[in-house]
């Protein structure tokens, strides 16, 4: 290794040099990769919105009260519904769900899990279509998880994934009510 008793100046200089050089390098890396990262996010978001608003072919962003809502439009440029991202605490971390609501019928028309850290094989099954189909054409409001749904507001759960299922249920419920709160009645 270099000098035995290097001066304090030398020590500080070495660290600062590495730090500055590294920061510049990373700034370059960030600028290079950021567009791709944003593109992935945008694409995932678009996929989610179009899934939860089945008749939509495009969407427009609208901000209200610090929340970002997405208006979906079909080919005839008719509005088909509003979507919003909502999250609830799951088993490992937060579960992020995109919820779509048809304002005319005051129903949730779709849900899509965006991001989660749930257990593979168990909680992660909340991304399965069979489960998410529970949330098509549900009245906006509170729901209950049961084994064999009979009532309108009852949802079928997944064995061994109680908490993850609860999280999605709460997120759809919360997201749906949030949309009605901002867009129901007056538009």
């Amino acid at each position, binding site marked *: 290794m270099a000098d035995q008793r290097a001066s304090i100046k030398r020590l500080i200089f070495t660290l600062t040099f590495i*730090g500055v050089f*590294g*920061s510049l390098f*990373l*700034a370059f*890396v*960030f600028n290079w990769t950021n567009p791709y990262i944003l593109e992935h996010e945008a694409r995932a978001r678009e996929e989610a919105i179009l899934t939860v608003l089945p008749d939509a072919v495009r969407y427009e962003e609208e901000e209200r009260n610090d929340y970002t809502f997405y208006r979906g439009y079909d080919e005839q440029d008719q509005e088909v519904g509003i979507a919003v991202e909502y999250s609830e*605490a799951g*088993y*490992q*971390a*937060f579960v992020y769900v995109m919820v779509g609501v048809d304002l005319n019928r005051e129903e949730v028309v779709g849900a899509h899990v965006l991001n989660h850290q749930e257990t593979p094989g168990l909680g992660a099954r909340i991304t399965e279509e069979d489960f998410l189909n529970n949330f098509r054409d549900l009245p906006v409001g509170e729901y209950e998880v049961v084994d064999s749904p009979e009532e309108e507001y009852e949802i079928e759960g997944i064995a061994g994934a*109680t*908490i993850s299922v*609860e*999280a999605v249920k709460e997120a759809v419920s919360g997201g749906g009510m949030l949309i009605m709160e901002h867009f129901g009645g007056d538009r």
Partner: protein
Amino acid sequence: MIEFEYLLFLFLGTVLVNNFVLIQFLGICPFLGVSSYVETAFNMGLATTFVMTMTAFIVYLVNTFILEAFNLVFLQYMAFIIVIASLVQLVEMVIRYVSPVLYKALGIYLPLITTNCAIMGMALMIPLEGYNFIESIVFGFAAGVGFTLAIVLIAGLREKLQFEDVPESLQGVPITLIMAGIMGLAFMGFAGMITV
């Protein structure tokens, strides 16, 4: 839920339900390295908890007022590790001054707190979960307590194990990991107790 209740649940949730070591896999190296005796383990836990709480505090400030304010989020890992390394250095000097005996007992493990993934992991979770200032400090403290709990429990078991007949191949690391696995099962019982 009022703020205090939330903080309490955050604390319990982090110590038990999402225990850093047994459930989130953070802090394994020191977990295996310093857990032979309860007393060393406890001291290590104490030092780590202190570093974690201070880290949470400073990381929140740095992240909010420097990184996010100036659009330097890509320097996050660098900034955080610098904060952690500096704090560990500071703690080292303080312990050396206050209790040379403890300093000697902890030995090499003190500087190794810097590479304790539990601290870095905790620091990264603060911007990730969007904790505010108070929440960050509670979270950091709780993470340390959870870590201390896990490491002390395992040390207790290991101390008892010294009088048992462990097959030679399993001695040391293997049996500790297996015990941790069983303990992890026990801790999983806390799941769902508190959802934060």
